């Protein structure tokens, strides 16, 4: 409606041969329009990256005059290098990602494939599978904390129903990390599933139909049609999932606080505890820098892969 009335408006004024004057304001206006959002982005998103690297090169010393910073170069990084706690959290972070990401991505892809076709049953299932999307990770974590309770939790209730002995879960240094994998998988699947559903919708149905005529079964169609055409989506989801799971914090904060025996002490939790439990902001900034560098490397490689796909 609006578009049409505006087109009519153009017919009326379009006949007038009037050239707008280009003035100085024409040159300033683009910047003026950008100023509020871009200065905000610069100050609250870009500048922190600089503050982070810069701050990690200094050390604080406290005297009667208050806090002074001394430039110490890479010494914070060297300290980190000789710190077994740091290496433990690096190991925990990689272990978590190595198991969590493939589980999450495969499950999201399988669910999306199962409910791909647009039938009533699938539409209802889709809505149900999207439910966790409405639930914040902090809340899911507190629900799961209760579910995994050793004495009264639902999971142990189910195990006992199946005549399997109760498990300690979050209080066991062998099981806690698997509980985090389970909780994080549950929280993330719906979000990843959306991307797969969108990706699958873009594959034309005729491809499957002509494959069927040629005698191909579902299993072959999946390997020959779906997977190759979904490659871009899979790569994209992998980047997204890696960068968010690498920074996984909330389930660990809510369920285990890095324990027991530092078995769930990820880099992000180390980062938080250095700053806010031990008040060692220099160490926290140094860990953030390490996290940023690893993330940039990962994103760089993923981009190279995505770029190749485009050609």
């Amino acid at each position: 409606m609006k578009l049409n009335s505006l087109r009519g408006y153009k017919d009326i004024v379009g006949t007038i041969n009037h050239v707008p004057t280009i003035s100085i304001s024409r040159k300033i206006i683009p910047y003026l329009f950008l100023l509020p959002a871009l200065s905000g982005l610069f100050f609250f998103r870009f500048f922190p990256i600089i503050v982070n690297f810069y701050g990690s090169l200094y050390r604080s010393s406290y005297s009667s005059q208050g806090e002074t910073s001394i430039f110490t170069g890479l010494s914070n990084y060297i300290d980190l290098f000789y710190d077994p706690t740091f290496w433990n959290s690096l190991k925990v972070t990689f272990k978590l990602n190595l198991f969590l990401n493939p589980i999450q991505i495969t499950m999201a892809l399988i669910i999306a494939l199962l409910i791909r076709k647009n039938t009533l049953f699938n539409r209802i299932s889709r809505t149900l599978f999207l439910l966790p999307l409405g639930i914040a990770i902090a809340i899911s974590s507190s629900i799961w904390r209760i579910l995994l309770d050793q004495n009264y939790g639902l999971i142990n209730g189910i195990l006992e129903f199946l005549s399997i002995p109760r498990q300690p879960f979050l209080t066991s240094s062998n099981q806690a990390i698997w509980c985090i994998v389970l909780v994080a998988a549950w929280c993330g699947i719906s979000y990843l599933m959306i991307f797969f559903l969108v990706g699958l919708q873009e594959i034309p149905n005729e491809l499957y139909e002509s494959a069927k005529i040629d005698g191909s079964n579902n299993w072959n169609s999946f390997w020959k049609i779906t997977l190759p055409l979904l490659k871009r989506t899979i790569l994209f989801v992998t980047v997204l999932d890696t960068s968010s799971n690498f920074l996984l914090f909330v389930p660990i904060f809510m369920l285990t606080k890095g324990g027991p025996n530092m078995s769930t002490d990820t880099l992000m939790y180390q980062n938080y505890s250095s700053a806010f439990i031990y008040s060692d902001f220099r160490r926290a900034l140094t860990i953030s820098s390490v996290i940023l560098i690893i993330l940039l490397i990962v994103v760089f490689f993923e981009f190279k892969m995505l770029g190749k796909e485009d050609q």
Partner: protein
Amino acid sequence: MKINISEIIRIALIFLFAIFILLPLIWALASAFKSNNRIMADTIPLSWKTFIPAPFRLDAFKDLAESNFGKSILLTVFVGLLTVFLGILLNSIAAFSFAIFNFPGKNILFAIVIITFLVPFEAIAIPLYIIVRELGWLNTIYALIVPAIPNGLTILLFRQFFLGIPNDLKDAAIIDGAGWFRVYWQIYLPLAKPAAISAGLLLFFSQWKAFFWPLLATQSENLRMVQVWIAYSTTTEYSLIWNKILASSVITAIIPIILIFPLQKYFIRGISTSGLKG
């Protein structure tokens, strides 16, 4: 009659995944309407009572009504709406500039937008904390709102939409003597309603679900956003009052679910344009 085996397997698998996804939610919903003792007693051993609240009790909700949970919800809604309003306004005008004008430095500025969009927020939370501390904003509502307003994803969403609006609309208005701000305000912004809905939902949910940043930036009890409120009540004072935790979770989860389903189309579009197509 021919029984389709692959269809049976498909439905069985859907059922299996649905149990994994929904069982925690059904249990949480049922337990929110139980007394605290019943939650524990009903879970082990497992019975039909595990998933159905009998007797049906509203104790937990009454407890919540008496606490400052309502205040926390109001604060979060206020912070969320203000972020949506200012976020749509400031990011869309920047997007308008990127979509319409050519100017020196455009590529560099656009690169900054992309970088800030690619670096996850959690990765810069601690340096941001230091900056906000230097500004003297810790423990103020500014710390919750201002850093959330500039948003790379929102800029990208609006830019994409603005690029699709035919140029003759803008040319006609300019010939008629309209200023650029009027072109943005009266033509582009009203046409970009779908982009505004996706962006608004994303901005609102980002505040509604925010946990890490409010946890760092605010300590005072009056500034506890919902997620932080629940976290504090699960870890400290209400450590064993499960029904209260679950009741507050149910209330907090309902609002996004109510918003998502009618607006699902926009929400999915917003998420999928964020990277897949952009």
